[in-house]
């Protein structure tokens, strides 16, 4: 019997493993956002603020009786980012048109491939997709979606005004002069900071003594690094444990490349160079390994010292949860975070400030091959992210009903509510989302969604300033954009985990960019790239 007891040890280990697995931890595995696949960060819950009904029931005279509109959207559920509003509007849409709405949720990783399979096989299974803006290169380049210009002014459809979309995100709605995406979500990255910490006299004094200048919302990436370094390791949420100076999501496939885009833009883009970032528009040579990009990546790697080591393996949700639990002083990410911070479970409501992405005092002019010194921070606005919005398939049997649905969701009444709620993943970008004097929005709307007023003011101002910035980050919209970005994403991960030096990884990325371009046809890619930049 004595020997038999030893037999139990492996099973005790096995059971312990199970128990450990069931026990869970502080980590919130919920992934993400309106930018990626899905469920909002787990630290917060959806609120009860609902969008009003604006379409009248059609009674016996339904314009699209018998039609079925099938829409694909990233998997997130009935109260999830981007998919939530579709479920919310379904009953109203069906009553107003007589058409049926089928919502097909597809995991983020499968959404684009499945849509492309449907489009390339011309089966027309899907009438529309709530698509990422970077898909447009493939969708328009392949002639798979139709412009909606002919429906836009037709009064039989719900009316919305694309003139109300701020200039930065408005550019993403059209391609080659035609309108393809119906306004919905407006992504862009801004910087978030813990206002309570930056306004604390104790920290202000200590920071001044250490760095020789006042503690304030960082205006350059160097200042951002100083503030992050200062707070890193300090207990900033009162739980007795050291916290982080900053948080980012840098896992491969965790959208770290978007961080790099927003981050590196002011190192490369400047008044003399508004659009040279990805490729040379004369010959499609990659520019991603320019000295400006390299310096940006070196700085980004340096900043990782001031966040948790684990963040190089974090996706969006984990990074957001870290901030929402009050465990980081700074971050830069999408609008979802500002809105999620207002909801149940957040530890930072009333403490979260926002500002446009910091700039630099020096940028590399790719055109002249020289570094340019600036007196004021060189700031670049961005529309980085998915800006998830509806597009209509060329093979749809019901394009009118499909446009009706997407236009209904784009109406001012609905969009106002969508943008103020955190859980639905729709971020602000239209004039009525912003508070006076920037726009015509109202604080009452944000109050109903549970916002702290000062948080809402700073949040909307940050987005307004970013989307209206004179310089905008050039969004890449060519075929195989995702392939280019994946190459960049993997290289960035190699750099931040110390597998290779920034120069080396960006050189490798440039070679991979070139290889992709060659495979797809340099001339074809160049033509589409120039069209996407409105150069032709």
């Amino acid at each position: 019997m004595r020997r038999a007891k030893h037999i139990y040890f492996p099973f005790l280990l096995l059971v312990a493993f199970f128990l450990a697995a069931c026990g869970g931890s502080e980590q919130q595995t919920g992934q993400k956002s309106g930018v990626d696949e899905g469920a909002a960060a787990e630290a917060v819950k959806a609120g009860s603020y609902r969008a009003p009904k604006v379409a009248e029931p059609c009674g016996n005279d339904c314009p699209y009786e018998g039609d079925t509109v099938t829409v694909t959207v990233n998997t997130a559920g009935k109260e999830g980012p981007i998919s939530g509003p579709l479920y919310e509007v379904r009953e109203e849409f069906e009553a107003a048109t007589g058409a049926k709405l089928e919502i097909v949720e597809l995991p983020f990783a499968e959404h684009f491939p499945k849509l492309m399979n449907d489009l390339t096989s011309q089966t027309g299974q899907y009438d529309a997709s709530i698509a990422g803006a970077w898909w447009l290169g493939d969708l328009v380049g392949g002639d798979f979606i139709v412009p909606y210009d002919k429906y836009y002014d037709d009064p039989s459809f719900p009316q919305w005004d694309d003139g109300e979309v701020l200039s930065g995100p408005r550019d993403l709605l059209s391609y080659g002069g035609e309108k393809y995406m119906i306004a919905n979500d407006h992504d862009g990255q801004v910087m978030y900071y813990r206002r309570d910490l930056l306004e604390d006299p104790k920290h202000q004094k200590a920071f001044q003594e250490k760095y020789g200048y006042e503690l304030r919302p960082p205006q350059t990436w160097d200042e951002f690094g100083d503030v992050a370094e200062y707070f890193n390791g300090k207990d900033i949420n009162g739980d007795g444990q050291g916290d982080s100076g900053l948080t980012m999501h840098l896992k491969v496939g965790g959208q770290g490349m978007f961080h790099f885009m927003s981050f590196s833009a002011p190192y490369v883009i400047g008044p003399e160079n508004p659009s040279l970032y990805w490729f040379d528009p004369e010959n499609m040579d990659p520019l991603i390994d320019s000295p400006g990009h390299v310096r940006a990546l070196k700085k980004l790697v340096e900043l990782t010292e001031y966040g948790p080591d684990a963040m190089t393996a974090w996706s969006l949700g984990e990074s957001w949860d870290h901030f929402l639990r009050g465990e980081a002083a700074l971050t830069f990410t999408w609008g979802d975070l500002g809105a999620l911070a207002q909801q149940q479970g957040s530890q930072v409501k009333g403490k979260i400030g926002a500002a446009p992405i910091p700039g630099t005092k020096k940028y590399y002019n790719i055109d002249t091959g020289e570094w340019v010194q600036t007196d004021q921070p060189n700031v670049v606005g961005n529309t980085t992210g998915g800006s998830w919005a509806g597009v209509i398939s060329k093979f749809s049997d019901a394009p009118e009903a499909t446009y009706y649905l997407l236009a209904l969701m784009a109406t001012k009444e609905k969009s106002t509510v969508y943008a103020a709620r955190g859980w639905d993943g729709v971020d602000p970008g239209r004039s009525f989302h912003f508070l006076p004097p920037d726009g015509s929005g109202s604080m009452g709307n944000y109050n109903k969604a549970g916002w702290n007023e000062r948080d809402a003011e700073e949040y909307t101002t940050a987005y307004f300033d970013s989307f209206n910035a004179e310089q905008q980050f050039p969004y890449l919209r060519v075929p195989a954009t995702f392939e280019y970005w994946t190459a960049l994403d993997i290289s960035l991960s190699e750099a931040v985990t110390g597998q290779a030096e920034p120069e080396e990884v960006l050189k490798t990325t440039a070679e991979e960019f070139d290889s992709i371009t060659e495979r797809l046809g340099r001339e074809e890619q160049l033509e589409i790239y120039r069209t996407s930049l409105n150069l032709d």
Partner: protein
Amino acid sequence: MDRAGDDRRSREYETNPKATPSNTRADRTKFLFIGPAVVWILAFTLFPLLYALYTSLYSFRYGQRLGFVGLENFARLFTDSNLLSSLRITLTFVVGTVTVEMVLGVALALLLNREIRGSNVIRGVATLPLFATPVAVGYLAITLYYERNGPLNSLIRALGGENIPWLSDPSWALVAVILVDIWQWTPFVFLITLAGLQSLPSELYDAARVDGASATQNFRFLTFPLLTPLLWLILLLRMVESFRVFDIPVSLTLGGPGRATEVYSLYTYRTALRFFDHGYAAAQGILLLVIVMFIVTLIFTRVRGLYEER
């Protein structure tokens, strides 16, 4: 003995010199039975294989066939450093997982191949991981490996150790993926080995006991030789399965950090379904098939040799 049938066939040969056994009704009945299996193999094995071969000879854009490129996609296989990296990672993964799974699985089976109280329950519990969905296991492992306050690191800290960067360090990330696979698939080795052990003839052990053989001698001269063909078979199945590993690295690390856990199947998946380069992905699939077939042939040859020796 079907004398009437034999007579009928003899008459057919006499009246029709071209008649052969395969033309007869009895043989046609055989084909009816074999037919479904043949159709199945043609439709689900040969056709996809031939279609993959056909696809590998073309270039693609937007997922649509562009033009015939001959062996260009195969030539790319040998100049693609990312592919070679994924192959190296996969080989490391296969060697790491299969070795540990075989040793642990066999050891567990030997431990449990005896009468102890609650053995049925223990055996049942031991096989539980086998029935979990690999993707779910991968996501579960994210929680377990969570570096700040996850259960594993909490345990390690409680024992006086330091946090292990399970998922953020390139070397540890591969170890993390290997450990999850070992956790899930060791029970497979255990289960089959246990079944093998329980089917061994007890007479041999009775005779050995009479001869005064020790437990070690029993294992060395009876159990191990008798189990060897089965162990080769398990090794073969686990190796083939490990070469195709996909779910666990995808759900746990997405191939990162960098390309540290980008296994071959993940690379092929990205090529086909993220980048829509179907021709090149088909060529990658065929290369993997060749590699696996080579290993399978080696093992089969060895197993056949063992049976012939016996």
